[in-house]
C-alpha cells in the first residue's frame, strides 16, 4: 500500500466514523425520547441510556429500566464501539501514510485526540452506569472530529525540522492521552455538578468516575509537561520559557493540582469540581486558542 492509498484510506475511515458516531447519537436520542414518553422514575431515565457492556453490572443500584429501552441503549453502545474502532483504524492509516507518529499537526492532533477520547470513555465507562455521558461524549467526539476535518485538515506531509524529534512521539502522545482523560473527567464532572445542583449527593458514580480518571490524567499530564520541557531544552536551549503554550500547560496543571487538593479538604469538596473544569478549559484553550490566536514558539503546529 502506498502512502497515498493509506492517506485516502484514513480519510475514508474518518468519514465513516463520522457517520457511525452520528448514528450512535441518533440511537441515544431515540433511547432518551422513548424513556421520556413512558412514566418511569427519574433515576431510571438517567440510568436508561447505557450501561456499557456490563452484564448486570449495577443492576442493584437503580430501578431496572424498561427492557426495550435497555436494548436501544445497548445498541447505541455497540454503535459507539464500532465508531471508535473505525476512528482508531483511521489514526493508524494516517500514521502509515505519514511514516511517523500521526500527531505532527493540528489536524492529526484533533483526529488522534478524538479517537483517544472515545477509547478513554470506553475504557473507563466499562461496567459503570455512564448514563448521559455516552451521548455527550459522542457529541464531543463528533464536534472535535468535525472541526478537525472541516477547518484543520491538511494532507499528509513531512515534518518541519524542529518537530523532527523522538520527543514529539513522547511529549504529544502523553498530551493526547492526558487530554482524552481530562475530557472524560470533565464530562463526568459536569454531570456530577448538574446532579449536585439538583440536590444530589456530594459523591455519586459520576464523581467517582471523574476522580478515577483524574488520578491517572494528572500524572500523565505532568509527564507531558516534563517531556515537553526536556524537548524544549534540547531544541531551544531552555527547558522553560513561558511561551504561551507552556504557560497554559502550567495553568492547566495548577488548576488540576488545586482540584486534587480541594477533594481532600473539608469545605472545599463541593467546589472541587469547578476547579477541575477550570483546568479542562485551560487545556482546551491551549489547543485551540493558543494555536490559533496567540503567536509563540509552538505556532508552527500547522493549522
Amino acid at each position, binding site marked *: 500500500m502506498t502512502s497515498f492509498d493509506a492517506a485516502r484510506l484514513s480519510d475514508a475511515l474518518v468519514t465513516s466514523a463520522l457517520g457511525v458516531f452520528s448514528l450512535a447519537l441518533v440511537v441515544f436520542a431515540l433511547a432518551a425520547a422513548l424513556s421520556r414518553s413512558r412514566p418511569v422514575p427519574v433515576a431510571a431515565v438517567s440510568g436508561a441510556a447505557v450501561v456499557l457492556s456490563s452484564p448486570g453490572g449495577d443492576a442493584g443500584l437503580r430501578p431496572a429500566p424498561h427492557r426495550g429501552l435497555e436494548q436501544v441503549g445497548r445498541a447505541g453502545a455497540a454503535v459507539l464501539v464500532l465508531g471508535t474502532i473505525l476512528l482508531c483504524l483511521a489514526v493508524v492509516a494516517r500514521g502509515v501514510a505519514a511514516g511517523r507518529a500521526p500527531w505532527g499537526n493540528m489536524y492529526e492532533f484533533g483526529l488522534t485526540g478524538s479517537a483517544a477520547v472515545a477509547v478513554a470513555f470506553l475504557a473507563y465507562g466499562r461496567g459503570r452506569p455512564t448514563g448521559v455521558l455516552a451521548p455527550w461524549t459522542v457529541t464531543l467526539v463528533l464536534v472535535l472530529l468535525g472541526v478537525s476535518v472541516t477547518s484543520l485538515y491538511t494532507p499528509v506531509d513531512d515534518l518541519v*525540522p524542529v518537530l523532527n524529534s523522538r520527543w514529539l512521539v513522547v511529549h504529544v502522545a502523553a498530551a493526547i492521552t492526558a487530554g482524552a482523560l481530562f475530557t472524560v473527567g470533565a464530562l463526568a464532572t459536569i454531570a456530577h455538578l448538574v446532579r449536585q445542583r439538583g440536590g444530589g449527593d456530594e459523591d455519586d458514580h459520576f464523581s467517582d468516575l471523574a476522580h478515577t480518571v483524574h*488520578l491517572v490524567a494528572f500524572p500523565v499530564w*505532568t509527564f507531558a509537561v516534563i517531556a515537553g520541557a526536556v524537548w524544549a531544552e534540547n531544541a531551544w536551549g531552555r527547558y522553560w520559557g513561558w511561551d504561551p503554550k507552556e504557560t497554559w500547560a502550567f495553568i492547566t496543571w495548577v488548576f488540576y493540582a488545586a482540584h486534587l*487538593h480541594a477533594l481532600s479538604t473539608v469545605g472545599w469538596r463541593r467546589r472541587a469540581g469547578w476547579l477541575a473544569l477550570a483546568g479542562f478549559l485551560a487545556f482546551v484553550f491551549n489547543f485551540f486558542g493558543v494555536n490559533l490566536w496567540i503567536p509563540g514558539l509552538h505556532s508552527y503546529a500547522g493549522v
Partner: protein
Amino acid sequence: MDVAQEEHELGSEEALRSLPSDPHERGRPRPSEVTAWGRWAWRRLTSMRTAIVLLVLLALTAVPGSLLPQRGVASDPAAVANFYRANPDLAPWLDRMSLFNVYSAPWFAAVYVLLLVSMTGCVVPRSAQLWREYRAAPPPSPRHLSRETGHHRGLVARPHDPLAVAAAHLRDRRFLVTRTSNEVRAEKGRLRELGNLAFHLSLLVLLFGIAGGKLFGYEGRVALVEGTTFANVSSSYDALTPAPWADLAGLEPLELTLNDFAAEFETEGARFGEPRKFEAAVSYDSAEEGDGSFTIRPNRPLDINGTKFFLTGHGYAPELTVRDGNGDVAVSGPIIFLPVDPAFTSDGVVKAPDARPTSLALRGLFLPTAVDGPDGMGVSAYPDQVNPIVQFMAYTGDLGLDDGTAQSVFELDFTDLDQVLDADGKPWRVSLAPGQTVRLPDGLGSVTFDGVSRFANFQIARDPGKEVSLAAAILLMLGLTASLAIPRRRIWVRRNDDGTVELAGRSLSRRPVPPGELHDLATTIGLPPAGAGQNKEEE
C-alpha cells in the same frame, strides 16, 4: 479510636494540614498577643484552604503573561515595542504594573513564594509525623469492625490457627503485619505518604534548579556566516543575556567555525517551500574537549562542557564589493541580510562610511528566487536559490556613525542621508545577478555582486541548574505517581472471645480497599462469605 486514626479519617492531606503546629502548645504560659497572632497567621498560611486559594491565584496570575507581549519571552523580540507603538496611552500603565514581565513581577513572585512557604510549613511537620509512623506498628483494631469495609465474621471450621494463616497471607502480600494474642494488624501502602512527601519536596528542589539557571546561567545569540569563526568571549555575541551572577569573564574557552550550512525545502504540494532539513556543519576547538567537528541540527545541539549551541535560524549573506569614486575597495565580503518572509525575501544594508569622495550606503533586498512583486520591487517565491538577485537603492551623506550613538548594522539613520537619483530625478535603483557589477551615477563608485553565502543563527546557552531541575522533575514524577496510585489501607483480623473470627479493612485514601483483597483473605482463613457472616450477626 486513637488520635492517629482520627486524623486519617479526614483524608491524608487534611490530616497533614491539621497537625498541631507546635507540640509545646499545652502546659506553657499564655503566649503574648504577638506570638499568638503570629501562630494564628502561620496556621492560616499553612492550611490547605490557603494553599488551594494560592494555587488558584497562581493560575490566574499566569494568564496575562500569555496574552500580553512579554520582555525576553516572546518569540518576537520587538513585540513589546510594537505594543507600545500601537497603544501609547495604555502601555505605560500596563508596564507600571509589570504586565510586560509578568513572570518576574513582584506580585507573581509573591504568590509562588507564599505558596511554597505554605507548602513547606505543611510538609516539614509531616516529615516528622511520617518518620514516627514508619517506625510504629499498625494500630489496634477498632472496637466495631463491622463498621469498616468488607467485614466478614464467622466460625472457622478448619483446625488451624486462623490468625497465623492471616498473618502469613498478608505478609506474602507485603503488608506490614503485627500479631498479638487475639488479632492481626496489617497495613500496606505507606509508600503513598512517602510519595506525597517526595512530590512536595521536589517542588522545592525544582526551585533550586531554576534559581541555578536564573542566577548563574546565560543565554546569547550569534549569527555566523559560512567560513567565519566565533570565539566564546562576551564581545563576540550579537546579544547576550546573563544572569546576575553569571561569570562572563570565565566563559568556556572555545572557538567554533561554521564550515557549511545546508537547507532543504519542500518542492511540491500544499506545503511548498516549507523547510525540510537544516544542517550546520561546524568544527570546534575547545580547551576542555579538544577539537572536533559536529553537525548541528534542530533538536541536535552541540554540547561543549555544558555550553550548548542550538541552531535557531538561518538566512543569506550576499557577497558584495563596493568601490568608491576613486576605485578603492570600501566594503568587501558577505553581508548578512535578515529574512522577512518564509520565502526568504531578505532585507539588508551596506555601510561604506570611508568611501570617497563621499560616504556611501546601500539599502536593499536579497531574493533567493526573485519574481516581480508590487511597486516594481521584487519578492522571493521560494526559500532556496533558484534565481538569486540583489536589489538596492543608494544614499550619500553622513551615516551618523561618528556621533557615538549605537546604531544597528541592519538599519540606516536617514537623518543626514540623501538618496541617489537617476538621470530622470527618480530614485536610482538596480537589480544584480551574481557576477554582475553596476556603476553608481555621478561617479560615486560601483557595486559588484560576487556570490551568495549562507549564515546560521545560533542560540548559545549555559544553565548550571538544569541537572538539578531534571532530578527534581524525576522525583516529582515518581512521588506524584506513588501518592496517587498507591492506596494506603489497613486490615484487621480478630479472634473474639466467643470463638468467632472477624476481619475488615479501612482505606486511608479516597480510593476504597481493593474488594478482592479482603475476599481472598477471608477465603484463605476459611471464613464464610460476607452474606453468611452478616446473617449470623443478626441472629
